[in-house]
């Protein structure tokens, strides 16, 4: 008896099937099959140009694949895009904050788009330790503070899945440490986390499973229990042939 795809993928938080993406005939993803369980913390590693950002953008529905299917919590991301977006919090290279507006106005704008109560603005700002800076215009905040508000924005609707695409980009060391400790301390054990980063050491602190993407394919995956930092570095070197 044949089952509907939604039913088949129901157990996975994220599932991709034979995912491909090409830009002007140039393939970036070449058949990515991925299954991530609810609550799993995944680090997606790989050199520049491996397709990490493209994969994250496809998972977040910013971009559609050339072929293949994505299921988020059992929902086909192309057919149920709006429902899927409600389940996802996305933190990218950019903060998605409007520099002329205050942090409060930005969060208030996004909470209207996500249809969540006004109290959430105060709650998430407190979570990132910046409630006292809500009235400041974004262009007067440091890049680190902007990124913390960006995380607050991504958590506004209490997403089941959080996607982070190199969230440390442009941050100084202190801000990076703060960002990682926030991610480590995320007490929501059921929240699925997918993180792309070049920082293997930091990834090891947070992730439970490591995937290496190279040349548009997942070439390596292993659980944290079977890896230490040196093992991860070795695997990275071996599967990416020393590319950055």
């Amino acid at each position, binding site marked *: 008896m044949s089952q509907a795809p939604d039913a088949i993928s129901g157990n996975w938080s994220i599932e991709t099937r034979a995912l491909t993406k090409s830009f002007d005939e140039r393939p970036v993803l070449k058949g990515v099959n991925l299954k991530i369980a609810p609550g799993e913390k995944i680090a997606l590693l790989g050199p520049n140009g491996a397709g990490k950002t493209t994969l994250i*953008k496809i998972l977040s529905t*910013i971009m559609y694949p050339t072929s293949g299917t994505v299921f988020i919590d059992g929902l086909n991301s192309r057919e149920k895009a*709006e429902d899927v977006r409600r389940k996802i919090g996305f933190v990218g290279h950019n903060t998605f904050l409007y*520099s*002329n507006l205050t942090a409060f106005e930005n969060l208030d704008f996004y909470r*209207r788009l996500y249809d969540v109560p006004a109290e959430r603005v105060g709650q998430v700002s407190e979570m990132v330790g910046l409630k006292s800076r809500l009235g400041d215009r974004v262009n007067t905040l440091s890049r680190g503070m902007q990124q913390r508000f960006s995380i607050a924005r991504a958590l506004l609707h209490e997403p089941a899945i959080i996607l982070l695409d190199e969230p440390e980009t442009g941050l100084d060391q202190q801000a990076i440490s703060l960002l990682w400790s926030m991610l480590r301390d995320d007490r929501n054990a059921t929240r699925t986390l997918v993180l792309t980063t070049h920082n293997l050491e930091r990834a090891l602190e947070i992730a439970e499973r490591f995937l290496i993407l190279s040349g548009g394919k997942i070439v390596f995956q292993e659980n944290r229990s079977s890896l230490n930092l040196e093992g991860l570095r070795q695997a990275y070197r071996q599967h990416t042939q020393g590319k950055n």
Partner: protein
Amino acid sequence: MPWRKMLAITWKDILSEFRSREIIVSVMVFTLLVIIIFNFAFGSNADTMKITAPGMLWVTFAFAGVLSLNRSFILEREEGCMEGLMVSPISREMIYAGKMLGSLTFMLIVEIVALPIFAFLFNIEVITLKIAAVTLLATIGFVACGTLFSALAVKTKARELVLPILFLPIVVPVIIAAVRATSLALSGKSWGDMASWLLIIIAFDAVFLVISFWIFNFVIEE
């Protein structure tokens, strides 16, 4: 409710513009300069004005509109916020509608300020119900089409050049219809005499609103 989200986008654009005053100030300065240059060129002779005023008015609004529309999506791209909108649970159609409504508000503000100045400098009666109706209807079509092309142009390298090149030839029918309807209104003709031109503008509005809603999703897709 989708319309609340749409209004949130419009409100955000208005608030952001209120803070930066990038669009309104530059478009207003441009509009005033053009009106003053036309005033020096053609004077304010009543007979000359009846012939030239509709063209002057719509040339001014068209180029001011292009300036304004150019900024609509450029600001989203420059701030890196387009993806923030795209990852939010709002349909692409509502993003289009929210951005369109914001641009419409800016253009109407410019027109509301420019029309009395135009009336004063050229000594013609442009503040009438008929001209207000023509201006509103033509601006809706202009902005409906322009918002779509602005989203398209912003993805190109020469974005500020691409918008007028792509957009103005498409929007010419609505500008011609607006010029003709304005000319008839200034000559004191009835609504009935203006009807055919108004219908062209309304048809253009409807066609471009439907087409834009339909294809906006593909235009902003990466």
